[in-house]
């Protein structure tokens, strides 16, 4: 390492400029805007204008409730599924590994719009392939779009399909970095595969699992496209409205930047809490 201020900053400045203008400053600016009344010209400082409205706004609590509900159900299910995928893809007994990997990892490259369109079509009431298949095995059709519970389930199914393989890739990479001889020693001592998983793989993988959880929570917290496109702007009747969608409606439909910034900072607050929790969970034991 060499101490060279001029050289270092010549390499760093182009990126730092963009980073400062489009990331650091907006983080500060958004915080300031959340304390301003933005539908008057000029904007005026009114500390409780947006935040006061937020804590009394049923639409906010509805969006918060829906977002947390999706978080609490979808994220653990998806991570568990990703874990199953990763363990099984890692098995030496598996043939045609490439095909299975393709099946689970392919959704990672599919864009939100493309897959939202397909899911919308697949789950439509009368002509959706899913209801046709349910019908053909004697189960009743489900009206995925007109009732809140199936609509929420649909969002969770869609997000899980899209992101389980992504998490499986990260978990698989983590598993493959565990040294082989740990397992060899355990096998020599006649420790069963199941016990090896619970007593070797899981503990050693804990930081990676926590990382996946944090990544997924922060991603799901900002959920926007799926309720925007699949359940048609958070329908039925706000039943799948998320914080991301509320921010979009307030910020870009009603052009209420102050209130939307308060919603955004609520998400930031949740993200900070989750990150601190991660640091605490993966802290080095003394």
């Amino acid at each position, binding site marked *: 390492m060499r101490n060279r201020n001029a050289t270092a900053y*010549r390499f760093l400045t182009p990126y730092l400029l963009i980073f400062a203008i489009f990331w650091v400053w907006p983080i500060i600016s958004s915080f300031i805007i959340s304390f301003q009344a933005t539908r008057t010209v000029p904007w005026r400082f009114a500390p409780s204008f947006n935040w006061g409205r937020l804590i009394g706004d049923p639409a906010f609590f509805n969006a918060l409730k829906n977002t947390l509900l999706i978080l609490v159900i979808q994220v653990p299910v998806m991570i568990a599924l990703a874990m199953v995928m990763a363990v099984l893809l890692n098995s030496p007994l598996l043939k045609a590994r490439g095909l299975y990997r393709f099946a689970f990892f392919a959704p990672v490259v*599919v864009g939100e719009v493309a897959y939202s369109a397909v899911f919308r079509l697949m789950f439509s009431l009368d002509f959706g392939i899913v209801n046709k298949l349910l019908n053909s095995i004697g189960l009743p059709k489900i009206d995925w779009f007109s009732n809140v519970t199936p609509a929420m389930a649909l969002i969770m199914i869609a997000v899980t399909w899209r992101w389980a393989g992504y998490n499986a890739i990260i978990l698989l990479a983590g598993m493959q970095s565990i040294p082989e001889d740990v397992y060899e020693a355990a096998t020599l001592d006649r420790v069963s595969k199941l016990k090896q998983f619970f007593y070797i793989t899981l503990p050693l993988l804990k930081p990676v699992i926590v990382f996946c959880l944090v990544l997924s929570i922060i991603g799901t917290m900002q959920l926007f496209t799926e309720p925007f496109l699949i359940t048609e702007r958070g329908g039925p009747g706000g039943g799948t409205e998320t914080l991301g969608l509320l921010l979009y409606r307030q910020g870009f439909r009603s052009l209420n930047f102050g209130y939307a910034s308060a919603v955004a900072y609520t998400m930031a607050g949740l993200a900070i809490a989750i990150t601190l929790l991660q640091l605490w969970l993966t802290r080095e034991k003394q």
Partner: protein
Amino acid sequence: MSSLSSARLRRSIALHLFLTPLALIWLFPLWMMVVFSTMPDNGIFSPGIELLPHGNFVDNFNNLQRDTNFVGAIGISVSVAVTYTFLSVLLTSMAGWALARYQFFGKGVVVAIIFGTITLPYAVVLIPQFIMVARDFQLANTWVALIVPPLFNSLGVLFMRQSFSMMPDDLFDAARVEGVKEWRIFVFVALPLARPMLAALAIILFLASWNNYLWPLLINSQPGAMTAPVALGTLIGLTKVSWGGIMAGAVMLTVPMLIVFVLLQRHFIAGIAAGAVK
């Protein structure tokens, strides 16, 4: 020995019996995307179960082109993704190089700000970015608006910093002894060595730009300035629209990426897994 191998065989069969249906379920939406894109609209909305492709893709594509200028939008998406990927790889590898190889005033602060804000949700900067680009700079519906603001992404910086710091010092010191300038060392020694990492980074950045939806939706909302996902998104939910056409568009957005994924799987997976090894 034979009892051991027959136990292995039973385990192997059980594994495949479980994993195959799961894999088929996972492939099903992609398969149906292709099937729908080849079916006439009245076929998609008919009571029968159709699981095999038909021959209607071209008609569907023409319907899509009638509903929105999808070819133009694809052109914008490709140009933006290529430019963004090039610029982002350049900026983040330069920054990663500086952070990995030099000691300089303020380094601790820079690293702390990058790390400290990396888990903040993107939603936080959305509104100031929009106000800045649309109102202050008057750049809505331009290519600059699509390409420049997303360049803030700092994951690439951390990834390249990691890559460069793992390279041995003597490699660069040898060149310095010869009196080679720092930027030449970066371009002609460090970058070629980092080729696999640059490939992984480029693929991930290209994909992110290609699929980006929320920012282009907000900032480039005029029909002639839309990216392909945004143009396609405007059709979803319309009552008089060709769903076969929408599916043809979805296939055109997805299949090229799937091909790239199959061809460059190793780089792809390296790029995604790299997010975990900070």
